């Protein structure tokens, strides 16, 4: 039986009817056309689908849309106004933290989570916290540099 859900997505209230089998990632991509959140695997391992649910990075491919009823969702599209970049996005651009870009939305969302929870994150912490995000292109070196730089930018701009 389809259910009605109310949630906030990138600051806007959304009310929709969804089937219980609908994954949150499919709801975001297909119902709301927020296609910045990617699907890279079928096994909950790659992290390309990472979004924030009530401020916490989670894998949107492993959550049902109905489980997000009442929640506050932030996707890559909600990070900065049109034409501007969030400090973490700017750091990825500056440090060449992407090649094909497929994993990047998930990396940026996880990176912001790292900056919030570990404002003093060292390289080992960043690598450990990125365990749930896979990249097929970069070899991670520049992703780690970008997250470190983005964390510094975020900490500086918030203090």
């Amino acid at each position, binding site marked *: *039986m389809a*259910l009605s859900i109310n949630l906030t997505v990138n600051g806007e209230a959304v009310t929709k009817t969804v*089937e*219980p*089998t609908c*994954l949150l990632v499919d709801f975001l991509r297909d119902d709301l056309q927020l296609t910045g959140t990617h699907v890279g695997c*079928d*096994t*909950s*391992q790659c*992290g390309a689908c*990472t979004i924030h649910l009530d401020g*916490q*990075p*989670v*894998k949107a491919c*492993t*959550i*049902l849309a*109905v*489980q997000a*009823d009442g929640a506050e969702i932030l996707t890559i599209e909600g990070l900065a106004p049109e034409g501007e970049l969030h400090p973490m996005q700017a750091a990825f651009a500056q440090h060449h933290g992407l090649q094909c870009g497929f994993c990047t939305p998930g990396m940026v969302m*996880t990176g912001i*989570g790292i900056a919030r929870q570990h404002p003093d994150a060292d390289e080992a912490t960043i690598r450990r*916290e990125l*365990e*749930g*995000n896979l990249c097929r292109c970069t070899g991670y070196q520049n992703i780690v540099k970008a997250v470190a730089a983005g964390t510094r930018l975020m900490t500086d701009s918030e203090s």
Partner: protein
Amino acid sequence: MFRFDYHRATSLEDARAAFDAAEDGVFLAGGMTLIPTLKQRLAMPSDLVDLSGVEALRGITLEGDHVKIGAMVSHKDVAKSPNVRDAIPALAILAGDIGDPMVRARGTLGGSVANNDPAADYPGAVLGLGATIQTDRREILADDFFTAMFETALEDGELISSIRFPRPERAAYVKFHNPASRYAIAGVFVAQLGEKVRVAVTGAGPTVFRHREMEQALERTFAPDALEGIAVDAGPLNSDMHASADFRAHLVKVMAVRAVVQALK
């Protein structure tokens, strides 16, 4: 996914009622195992009963020399709990090394223990500490709980509400990670509880088990050298694309020695 209906329970009674009313219901905790299973069409429940709104399944409390953890407490919250870190640091470290940060934010103690994946970490701590599983109808001792691969003593519809862990004198958990999934290829939980020592092995066999010979040796002397002459029998251990039974047997010994060293720190 096959079609199913979804209910968000607001209390234990509500969860029970929704489960009983369903033709083939299943509880949904963090969904980190159940949702991948549904996506792969390996299960076809008629109804999902979401436990996330049941307040009674939350919370971590100190009860004398025990720590009681609600079934719906996430791995992340166990890892950062001051009570757990103080009373049973090995348990906090174990929880903080399950999967990845996103999995730890959603996955729960109750879901992991009910699922009894042979490669899961928590069964090691539950059996290694001799914890008690509280369900909606009875208490089950860890020694009676894990019956076979993905099988437990839980009856159909029986709900884990919390788990009580005794505070050990010392304990440690060391695992050899599967580099892709972070699950245990072999993990050993060692705990000294008064005169008794418990050694639980996860990841290596069809289900978590105790290694009595190591326990007796460590009861005589709690030191890494005490394990020197002990051979781990590869016979009952798992062989798969990740590791052979012989390699797992070797790893069990190495992890056990490391766990004792760690526990003595």
